[in-house]
């Protein structure tokens, strides 16, 4: 298989995740877009690992670690979202502008 196939799919997935990250209002949906971008990076890692036939399997091992870190990130992110919802009764990122410049 040409290496370009997985690389282009990964680029598309990354761009879609970037769009969701910038365009979504709900904090949980933003977290989902981050997951899509992490998936794109993982696909890149696996494709390069298989291409280079690395003896240490560093690409696939790193992919496993990215998956584990993504699980930790979602757990912590949701804890923050729940805490925020308990205090502000919203999970829309537009309303969370306390630290921004006054408009």
């Amino acid at each position: 298989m040409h290496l370009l196939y997985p690389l282009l799919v990964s680029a598309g997935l990354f761009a879609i995740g970037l769009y969701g990250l910038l365009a979504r209002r709900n904090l949980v949906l933003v977290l989902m877009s981050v997951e899509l971008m992490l998936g794109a990076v993982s696909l890149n890692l696996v494709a390069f690992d298989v291409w280079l036939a690395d003896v240490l399997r560093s690409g696939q091992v790193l992919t496993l670690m990215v998956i584990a870190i993504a699980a930790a990130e979602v757990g912590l992110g949701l804890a923050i979202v729940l805490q925020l919802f308990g205090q502000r009764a919203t999970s829309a990122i537009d309303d969370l502008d306390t630290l921004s410049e006054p408009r």
Partner: protein
Amino acid sequence: MGSTLIAEVAPSGGPADAPSYLDVTGNEVVFVLIAVITLGAALLCVTSSNVVRAALWLVVSLGGLAGLYLVLTAELVAIVQILIYVGAVVVLLLFGLMVTKAPIGAQPALNTRNRPVAIVVAIATFGLLVAALVDAFRFAYVDLDVGGQGSAETIGGALFGSWVLAFEVLSVLLLAALIGAIALTRRDVGAKGHR
């Protein structure tokens, strides 16, 4: 015909042993089919006006990604992807949607007013990545017939051999994240009189 066309376009210095893009193999057909499902589901995930449906499209997209790993002979990574993402992460996300009382029905206001800028940025990123990747990896060819590159035995041996320190550090990180999540959500720890 096709191979001579590619050979004429190819700059000197490119590896001549890479097959033509017109000689499509079965692996590539399967890969492209699963990739269409993955990308389509991802697009529906970020554009759906219903939050629960967006989460379920994410399941389809991440499951398709596991299929892509399988085509790339990374079996263990595919299985772990399904176990952790589809089994745990999406369930957590759905849990978060339910607890924050997100409306289940269709909502018109799920996008911020940044949406046009987001479209431009996403398309520009995609174009930049595609241009760079095509320029750099036109002749790279993956030999998928080697086999056993992603089996549990190989990856497990590497993980508990060369990468065992990183593995242990990662387990400490997971423990820290677990304790952090508990400390964030428990009501009876932290500053008194805060709530």
